[in-house]
């Protein structure tokens, strides 16, 4: 590093850009993202896309980013296969809805903060419960058990009407931070951006920490981690609980935006959307998780417009199965053609300081 502050800032500035863009391939990917983003902004400025719609779409995308970050902790960091993303999301959503809505079966009408805390606590307990029998065994047991868990959670919420209002759902959920001098869409977006910022910063920090290094060792060779004296079960459990909590936070956020929840929102397809987002974005990469979630939301919302296109509607195809087919093929194709994803983690994991020294010597 130079003593000159001017060049110092510039180096730091370049360091920041370098920390985002690391290869030509990534530059193309990020360039594409920038083009799309500018395109959407231009469309909004021209009035083609209405601003409130854009804001609510971005809030939804933000929720997907949270879910993807959560699954990325489990699958990306620790190699844990969780097929009950929708269940943890639903647990968070229902915890928040039941405690904060005045006309829920519990009828408490508490502050949303309490709902968020409950979402965190309940999802953590559920994660420990499912982790105890499965995390000591080979990876696929968690996959199987979590697939079952998702169904069981959905059934319980559907059938225990005295607690969860069953299929009639819960409405009257309060909005977030109504006192702010913003439109509600803008407030929601601000909240999710803050949530993502906190989660992202936290994950970036822990992933580079010794804890994250142990997890990466476990993912690539669990026997090695054991041989080094690490309690791999405890580490996997921590990663699983952490990821599940993040998913539950996403669910809690969702009910305060949507203001209504019913068990049909807990469909397994949500889980597979998030899986596509993680493996498409780049397994183990937080930047990839953000990009993957944005791509998936674009697919989900984009296909919705297809019905409005006259030529497509005249084919008389049902969109829901096409979307299912698309998600299925996307999973197969990503594993086959680009298993590392669009933005693979590579040296995202190395402290910036460490890399700079290496480059200068």
């Amino acid at each position, binding site marked *: 590093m130079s003593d000159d502050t001017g060049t110092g800032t510039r180096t730091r500035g370049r360091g920041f850009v370098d920390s985002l863009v690391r290869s030509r391939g990534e530059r193309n990917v990020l360039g594409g993202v920038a083009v799309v983003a500018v395109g959407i902004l231009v469309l909004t400025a021209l009035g083609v896309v209405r601003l409130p719609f854009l804001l609510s779409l971005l809030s939804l995308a933000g929720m997907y980013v949270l879910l993807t970050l959560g699954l990325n902790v489990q699958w990306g960091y620790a190699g844990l*296969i969780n097929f009950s993303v929708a269940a943890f999301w639903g647990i968070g959503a229902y915890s928040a809805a039941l405690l904060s809505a005045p006309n829920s079966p519990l009828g408490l009408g508490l502050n949303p903060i309490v709902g968020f805390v409950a979402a965190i606590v309940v999802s953590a307990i559920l994660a420990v419960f499912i982790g105890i029998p499965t995390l000591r065994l080979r990876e696929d047991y968690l996959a199987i058990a979590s697939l079952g868990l998702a169904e069981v959670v959905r059934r319980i919420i559907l059938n225990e009407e005295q607690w969860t209002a069953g299929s009639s759902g819960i409405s009257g959920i309060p909005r977030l931070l109504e006192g702010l001098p913003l439109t509600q869409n803008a407030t929601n977006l601000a909240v999710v951006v803050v949530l993502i910022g906190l989660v992202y910063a936290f994950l970036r920090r822990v992933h580079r920490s010794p804890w994250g290094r142990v997890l990466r060792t476990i993912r690539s060779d669990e026997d090695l981690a054991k041989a080094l004296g690490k309690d791999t079960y405890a580490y996997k459990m921590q990663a699983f609980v952490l990821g599940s909590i993040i998913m539950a936070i996403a669910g809690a956020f969702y009910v305060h935006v949507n203001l209504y929840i019913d068990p049909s929102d807990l469909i397994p397809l949500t889980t597979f959307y998030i899986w596509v987002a993680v493996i498409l974005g780049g397994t183990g990469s937080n930047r990839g998780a953000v990009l993957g979630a944005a791509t998936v939301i674009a697919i989900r919302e984009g296909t919705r417009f297809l019905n409005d296109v006259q030529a497509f509607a005249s084919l008389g195809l049902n969109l829901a199965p096409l979307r299912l087919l698309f998600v299925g093929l996307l999973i197969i194709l990503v594993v086959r053609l680009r298993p590392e994803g669009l933005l693979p983690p590579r040296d995202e994991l190395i402290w910036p300081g460490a890399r700079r020294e290496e480059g200068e010597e």
Partner: protein
Amino acid sequence: MTLLVPLQGLNPVQFLVNGLVFSSVIVLASIGLSLVYSIADFANFAHGDTMTVGAFGALAAAGVLAPAMEGILVFGFPVWMFAALFVGMALAAVVVVATEFVIYRPLDTGSIELLITSIGVALAYRAVIFLGFGTDASRYGVPRAGPIPEIRETLNLAVTPRQVVAVVSAIVLVGALHVLLQYTTLGRKMRATADDPTLARVSGIRTREVIIAMWVIGGVLAAAGGVFLGLETLVRPRMGFDILLIVFAAVILGGIGSVYGAMLGGLVIGMLYELTPLFSMVGIPIGNEYAEAVAFVIMVVILLVRPQGIAGDAT
């Protein structure tokens, strides 16, 4: 999804009869899942949807064959249903072998990547069925026959001809598989590959052919299970996926990778599943809507107590 036949003067053995029918379905399904586990070494999440493919293949065939073979009965059962069953089995075999060639074989990755790919395959199968048949439930249109009168009078049990067909067919198929595995060269090759693929390959076994055989057998049996399930209940696009967890529970109970363990596990889980209503009779109020949850709880208990299963040694 209960197979319960309403009956006055409830005979507890009736539950065992119903359980046996459901067990036949689970046993047929769990064999294929277990074969893929032991030979190709991954958890095949598309197996449930393979059952659905078979069931819908038979449904399509039944639509064509039923008018052509109207009125011909075998054991009091329309012969076109047997023909439709074979079409469904053949279709499922073709589909899984094609999937192996197009999707699994070019993938040179570990078992976890294969597992994730199989989820994609499962979604794709189901989506195609949705596109072809819509989302509604259908029936094969086998005329509803009441319980066989002789059995009803002598044993006070309601047993329908289709239940007999399902159980007998399952026994025949499982017996055929046993002969194949134990007394033929292909069976020996399959067992050798399951034990140690590398050693099998070094000994000159063409493991690729073994893998094709594995898919054919698994697909055929899964399709049979799917058709019998569709006969007893309804033919639904989600039927296979909904039952997959129970099939996994059976395979884990039997011990992952053990075909005979899977048969035993399927028998036990199928029985337990149908015995769920008995729990409420002894005072534990579990409604039938929680039958899946019961399978799940059984699985979690197995994982805690004996994760290697009844017959397995893998951890």
